[in-house]
């Protein structure tokens, strides 16, 4: 469809006043003259602001800067909760970074807003060859690839083997009936109703936690959240109803206490099982110390024995800003960082980076090479899941759809809505948002 012509007066008005103020208020940083042969400085904006992640990213960047005279890379980082806001504000102010690392959920939104540049054909072909389908799907919108996948997070079942053994459960559950039984048997309460140990940790900590758990179970049941055309939700399906009924039953029977923060309760030994993403292993190990040996990871249970395995995949990608004046150099740096094989094991620098902080990339071969030499065995189920995981929907309204789903899930858990009401309300609200034409 041809974009509607915009009136010049309105456009000029919209541009003139705010742009004049922004220009007067702040000067754009110097990023080189752009003349052939002159130095180029590329800026990279990510959420790697903590000590371990920051140091891990800085190492290859320093290597690049030491081995390339003309093109230099400078990194900036903010907290994840500020990442999208920072993209928005800097872009509107004309100071967008050349390279950005967005959360895959935002891909559709950033593409619609014209922020992410489509990956050049050569790079796109390499990405499709070198990464798992889940990782490629998470970094794509409308069938086009928009960057190199970096973190690839799949979801699996964390369990505390000590708590399971104490309750007489000999192995982690593989089916939903086994999950329900194990959860109920491991739950402990005091005489005032305070939960001492909850069997299965459904948590309302944030959108990603609440929805991630639910979508992992939904995918395991063969369902999806958004229809393939991206214009409506598919939550109101037999699979969706089964997931909502499972979660409703777990909470009603007291096997789950959604008010508890699982990220604190599980390492404290107060939750027997949690569905979460692979990055958590890196946080649990230093937090639990010697108790980490009690932690195991298993594939997400399926509704019935023999069911096809599936789970949720999400992650981050590194893409180039459409506002960048040096896209060719930016893509070359990304290729060097994400695709060039180096070292004795012949893995990419990004793969080595992610494994060093307890995370994964979508390069299954790299992961096997790195994890095979004494890596954390708990990462293996997440690696295996790369082959069958379903990417998180990233249509333009995905963030709002996720928040709306989270609200309805919590309403279901707290008895505010029945299963039918929650499904119907979710469908109505999400369809209203994702179907809007832009």
């Amino acid at each position, binding site marked *: 469809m041809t974009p509607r012509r915009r009136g010049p007066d309105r456009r000029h008005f919209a541009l003139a006043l705010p742009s004049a103020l922004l220009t007067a208020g702040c000067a754009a940083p110097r990023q080189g003259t752009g003349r052939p042969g002159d130095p180029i400085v590329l800026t990279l904006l990510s959420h790697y602001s903590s000590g371990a992640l920051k140091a891990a990213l800085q190492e290859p960047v320093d290597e690049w800067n030491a081995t390339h005279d003309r093109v230099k890379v400078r990194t900036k980082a903010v907290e994840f909760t500020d990442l999208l806001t920072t993209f928005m504000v800097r872009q509107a102010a004309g100071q967008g970074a050349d390279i950005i690392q967005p959360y895959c959920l935002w891909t559709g939104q950033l593409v619609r807003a014209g922020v992410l540049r489509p990956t050049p054909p050569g790079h796109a072909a390499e990405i499709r060859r070198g990464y798992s389908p889940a990782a490629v799907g998470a970094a794509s919108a409308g069938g086009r690839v928009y960057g190199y996948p970096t973190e690839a997070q799949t979801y699996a079942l964390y369990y505390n083997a000590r708590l399971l053994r104490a309750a007489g459960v000999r192995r982690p559950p593989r089916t939903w009936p086994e999950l329900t039984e194990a959860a109920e048997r491991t739950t402990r309460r005091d005489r005032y109703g305070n939960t001492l140990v909850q069997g299965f940790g459904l948590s*309302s900590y944030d959108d990603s936690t609440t929805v991630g758990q639910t979508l992992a179970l939904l995918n395991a049941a063969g369902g999806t959240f958004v229809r393939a055309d991206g214009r409506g939700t598919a939550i109101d399906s037999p699979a969706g109803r089964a997931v909502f009924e499972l979660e409703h039953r777990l909470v009603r029977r007291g096997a789950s206490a959604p*008010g508890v923060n699982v990220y604190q309760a599980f390492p404290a030994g107060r939750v027997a099982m949690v569905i979460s993403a692979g990055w958590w292993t890196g946080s649990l190990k230093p937090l639990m110390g010697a108790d980490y040996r009690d932690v195991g990871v298993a594939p997400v249970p399926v509704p019935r024995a023999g069911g096809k395995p599936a789970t949720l995949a999400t992650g981050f990608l590194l893409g180039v800003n459409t506002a960048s004046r040096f896209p060719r150099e930016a893509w070359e740096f990304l290729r060097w960082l994400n695709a060039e094989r180096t070292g004795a094991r012949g893995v990419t620098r990004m793969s080595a980076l992610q494994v060093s902080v307890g995370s994964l990339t979508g390069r299954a071969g790299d992961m096997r090479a790195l994890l095979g030499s004494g890596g954390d065995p708990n990462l293996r189920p997440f690696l295996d899941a790369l082959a069958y995981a379903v990417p998180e929907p990233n249509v333009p309204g995905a963030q709002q759809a996720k928040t709306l789903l989270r*609200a309805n899930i919590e309403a279901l858990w707290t008895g*505010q809505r029945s299963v039918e009401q929650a499904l119907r309300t979710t469908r*109505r609200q999400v369809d209203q948002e994702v179907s809007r034409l832009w």
Partner: protein
Amino acid sequence: MNTLVPERADRPASRARRPGPGLAARARRRQTVVAYLFLAPTLLFFAVFLALPLGFALLLSMSRWAGFDLGDIRPVGLDNFTGLFARGSTFLTPVLTNTLLFALGTVAVALAGAVLVATCIDRLRFQGLWRTLYFLPMVTTVVAVGNVWKYMYEPGGLVNGVLNALGLGSVAFLQDPHTALPAVVVVQAWASAGSAILVLTAGLKSIPRSYYEAAELDGAGAATVFRKITLPLLRPSLLFVCVTQFLTGLQSFALITVMTKGGPGDATAVAALEMYRQAFSYGDWGTASAAAFVLFVVVLVITLAQLWVFRRRGEDT
């Protein structure tokens, strides 16, 4: 001789009158120009930080903008406003209803508590000390207040600890959709009652003691004195407190962000939080701006209603 003197007097008078009007007019114009020159910094501040953002928000409320490219603002008429009230929208219910309930609850609890505390302070010594103590929550950061109260409400926290000590079961205050909003209202009222107490103690001091002496001579009881003398004469202070507390409640979302994030479900989702999400999380600045204007209309109507009610009662009295 007499005739000559008046003639001389008349001549200077007529001479003086001729340039009078011109001089006065020019002087007034100069004064006006000087006044505006002195006002210029304030007017510039007003234009840059109030008028311009307001105009931009009005433009956005009738446009579609993702927040990234200032050149990509596309007009859509009233689509954003109609979207707010569409069948699948969450703005009217529960967002707006939650906002109104939150504001009303805050006003009710804070006002009742403040009147009680102010009346007690008025009868105590060291009034400055007591006012300072009750004002302290006002100067505490909202994030700290929210986190402390959140831990107090937790199962195993202070509140449930007291309930357990009394032999009662725990209540998941912030995880139950029926108790989450009242729980946050209590915290908001506690945090904002300090300013109300200051205003009301000042109002109490402005009531002449002779009224109370006369009532005492007539044998009126304490309850009668409070109902017939104190409350009616506190009406201007009560009006001010009601209006300001209501405005604060309608616009507040930092406390809710810290304590409940709008949950459980959407039981504590309020308008300001929804606007923030629409703009910065969903990239839908048009809907956010439209919601802001709808909230503005609601605030205006309620404030005018409060003023009308209180003034009408005042006139009756």
